[in-house]
Each structure stands twice: as structure tokens, then as C-alpha cells.
């Protein structure tokens, strides 16, 4: 099943507009529009009230689409940890606390997003964590489980980051997404360091260059970028003492929705 097509085929007409028209949205839309031509469009429209519902609908649709995208990733993570924790002889007893904590958060994220989306929430897909056999020992070999955990957490961080711009005009939803995003990053750091120690690989809590450490390379594509908000930090004279590794570790990079869906697609049955 192609997840990208699934996401695209979402029936947006079913969206409950009210659910996403948080009281503050209208206010924020005008306030936030300051730097965009949107403001001019809104204020110069002959009848502003006629133009408004159309914009709000588009806004609402993109928020729903974004939250459903997030929900799909959270389903994936939640299910992965449920299966991992249920598997016998997989997670060493001394590491179970870590994965129970992570799993607890993924379940909470699923519940939050499902509640926020209401009837518009997508159903949980059927997952295949072996990815058609590529990770056949996902739940019987701890090293594979750790590699997948790192993969899903780092992908999650990049996925949320890539969607932030879609929530720019919805302060409450943006803040919620950021609050989830940083929790995914905490998970990623912990799992990466755990995996580094378990495997004797030099894996830090942060991503060095675009090193994948045996996880799918697509997950780390572009992580070596050094240009942020138009400024290339690789040429800053004040950072001449900082290695390129350090510079790239300092910034996590986003992935587009298409990139993320291509990464997770093999795990959808």
C-alpha cells in the first residue's frame, strides 16, 4: 500500500471545520499576516468577509492534513514499541524503563492527535516492521530493534520540523507540535546513545554530518546542511575553531512530507 497515495486520498470534505477553528485563529491570522501579502489581500478585498471563509478553509485543511501525517507517524512508533515491549527476550531488562517511557509518550501522542482530529483522524495502517523481510529480525534481534528505533525517532524529529511552516498561522497547534517534536528528539538522543554503547559504534545523541550508522541513509539525507535561514555557518570566521562535525551536529534538518512517506512506506503492509 502506498502511504503517499493514502494521505493524498484523504477526504478533506469530511473535515469538521469547527474543530479546527479555534477561537484564536481568526485573530492570529490577521496578526500573523503582517509580513505577507495575505494581509493586503485580506484588507483590500472589496468584501473582506467573503474572502475570509475561503482562506480559513484552506488553513484548516492543511492543519488537518498535517496532523493526520503526524498521527500516521505516531501510530507507527506506538505500534513498534508495543510490539517490541511485548516480544520476549528482545529488550534487556535494564533497558525496558527507557522503552516503556518512550512507548508511553507515543501512545499519548496518538491519543492527543486522534482527539484533536476527531472524525477526521485517519485509521491506523497495518504495519510490517520487517519491511518485507529487510528487517526480518526486528523483534528478535535487539540490534535491529535499536536501529529501527533510532530510525523512527530521527525520522519523527525531521518530519515534525518539516511541517512547522504549515502551522505558522495556528499558534496553538504549532506549539503543540513543537512540544511533541522536542520529546521525539529526547527519545532520539537516548536511543542513539544506547545503540552506540550496545554496538560499539560511535553514535552520539546528535547527528554528525549525514552519518546514518547503518540505519537507512535516506533518513539522514541533507543533515550535513550548513545554511540556516539564509546564513551559511560553515564560512563564519567566528566559528573557525568548530569542526564541520560540530557545526552539522548543532542543527537538525527537516524532511518534506514526501521524503518521510518514502522512508516509512516500506513499513506499511
Amino acid at each position, binding site marked *: 500500500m502506498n502511504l503517499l497515495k493514502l494521505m493524498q486520498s484523504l477526504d478533506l470534505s469530511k473535515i469538521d471545520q469547527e474543530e479546527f477553528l479555534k477561537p484564536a485563529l481568526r485573530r492570529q491570522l490577521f496578526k500573523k499576516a503582517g509580513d505577507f501579502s495575505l494581509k493586503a489581500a485580506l484588507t483590500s478585498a472589496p468584501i473582506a468577509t467573503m474572502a475570509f471563509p475561503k482562506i480559513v478553509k484552506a488553513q484548516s485543511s492543511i492543519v488537518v492534513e498535517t496532523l493526520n501525517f503526524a498521527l500516521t507517524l505516531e501510530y507507527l512508533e506506538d505500534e513498534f514499541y508495543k510490539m517490541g515491549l511485548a516480544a520476549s527476550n528482545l529488550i534487556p531488562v535494564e533497558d525496558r524503563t527507557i522503552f516503556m517511557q518512550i512507548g*508511553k509518550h507515543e501512545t499519548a501522542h496518538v491519543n492527543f492527535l486522534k482527539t484533536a482530529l476527531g472524525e477526521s483522524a485517519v485509521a491506523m495502517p497495518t504495519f510490517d516492521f520487517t519491511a518485507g523481510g529487510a528487517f526480518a529480525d526486528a523483534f528478535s534481534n535487539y540490534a535491529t530493534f535499536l536501529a529501527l528505533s533510532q530510525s523512527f525517532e530521527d525520522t519523527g524529529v525531521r518530519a515534525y*520540523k518539516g511541517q512547522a*511552516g504549515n502551522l505558522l498561522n495556528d499558534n496553538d497547534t504549532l506549539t503543540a507540535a*513543537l*512540544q511533541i517534536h522536542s520529546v521525539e528528539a529526547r*527519545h532520539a*538522543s537516548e536511543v542513539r546513545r544506547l545503540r552506540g554503547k550496545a554496538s560499539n559504534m560511535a553514535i552520539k545523541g546528535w547527528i554528525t554530518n549525514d552519518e546514518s550508522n547503518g540505519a537507512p541513509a535516506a533518513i539522514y539525507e541533507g543533515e550535513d546542511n550548513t545554511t*540556516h535561514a539564509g546564513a551559511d*555557518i560553515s564560512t563564519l570566521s567566528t566559528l573557525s575553531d568548530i*569542526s564541520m562535525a560540530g557545526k552539522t551536529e548543532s542543527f537538525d534538518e527537516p524532511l518534506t512530507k514526501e521524503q518521510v512517506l518514502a522512508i516509512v512506506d516500506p513499513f506499511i503492509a
Partner: protein
Amino acid sequence: MAFLENQNEEPGFISKRVHRRMFMKYAGAAAATSAFLVAGCKDDEEVDKGMPDAEVDLGSGDTGVLNYAYALEQLEAAFYTAVVAEASFTSIFNDEEQTVMRDLMAHEITHREFFKAALGTNAIPGLEVDFSSINFADKASVLGAAKTFEDLGVAAYNGAGKLLTDGNLLLAAGKIVSVEARHAAAIRDLIDPKSASFSGDDVVDANGFDKAMVPADVLSAAATYVKTKINASNLPTS
């Protein structure tokens, strides 16, 4: 000026001076501010009695939000610079911990210099820090302070995202906050290995949400460590 007052009396004198010097070296402070800090070093008492600390206004709009982030990054960078500069650094921290501390110093300096470059002439000057409450020769004290700084950084960025209007700046902030969260988890795990603390219930709520704090609360929490008065009253509120 508590940070300076301690200099004349106890063995910490040397290391504290080093911290201060290291901070200034890396602070990238505007020339005028460096001059002020240098003057402060030469005659602490005079500064203490006579000269009120200059207030720094973060400014308004996106610039104000970036200056807010720049202020926090200055604080973090100065902290890890002092940690690594401590004479007993290599004896109180094991290899893994030293690597983490050196990495965090590099990252925070990178963040600081990114904001300074991004802000250009709108950048606030270098802040004067006060780490007198931290014992840099004590592992627990240093890790405890690191945990405070990293968790605070995460909550600050999470709360500041909505204050930005420019999508590119929001993305840049997003690129940084997840690295701060990675730091927070690592520091917490160094303090309490293999526990739930890396993403603990004290910072992550029942919805699985990390904290988000408004600037006033963040700056209030950070005030212990910053001598310079910071005026955040012109920042956007939504």
C-alpha cells in the same frame, strides 16, 4: 556583582577568572561591551558601587525573538566554555562525559554565532553572566546546571515558535530546539543512567508534551545566571 565579589577571597579565584576570560573570549561581544567588561575586571569595587548594569532591550518582532534566543545561547555557550575550562575538568568527568560537554560547548557556540550573524547590527551586546551558584569543580553541580539550562532552552524555544512570523526563522529555531532536546536527554541520562529521566515525567506531561514557556518565565528562571538586566517587554506575545 556576586560573580566578581568572590574573586578576592577564595581558591576559586583563579578558575573563576579563567571562566570569565573564556566567556569574554568566546562571547563575541560588541567592542563597547567588551570594554565595559574589561573595565569591570580591573576595578570590581568601583563598578560594584557606582555603575548600574546597563539594561539590554531585546527589541520587538522577529528581531526581538531572535535576540531572546541569542541571549539564551550566550548563556549556554558561556556555561559550557567555563565547564571545559575548569582545571579539574578531565579528572571529574569520564571520557564519555567530557565528549558530551565538549560537544555541547561547540553546539552552543555555533548557535550563538549563528544568531549573532543572523541579527547583524540588531544583535544585543554580549551579556554578563553570573555562575557563582555553580561549583565547576563538582560534577553534580555542573550536570545539574546543564540540565537546568537544556530543559529551559527546550521550553523557551517551544514557547517562542508561535512568536515568530517568518517561516524561515521558525524553521531555524526548529532546527536548534531539537538539538537542545537531544542535549537535555543526554545530560539527564548522565545524571540518572537508563532511567526514564531523559524524557522524564517532570518535563513531559500526560499528553507526551514537552514544556513550552513564555519569555518572561524563561528569563526569570535564567536571571540567577545573568548579571545583565534584560528587557523583554517589547517582545511579541502571540
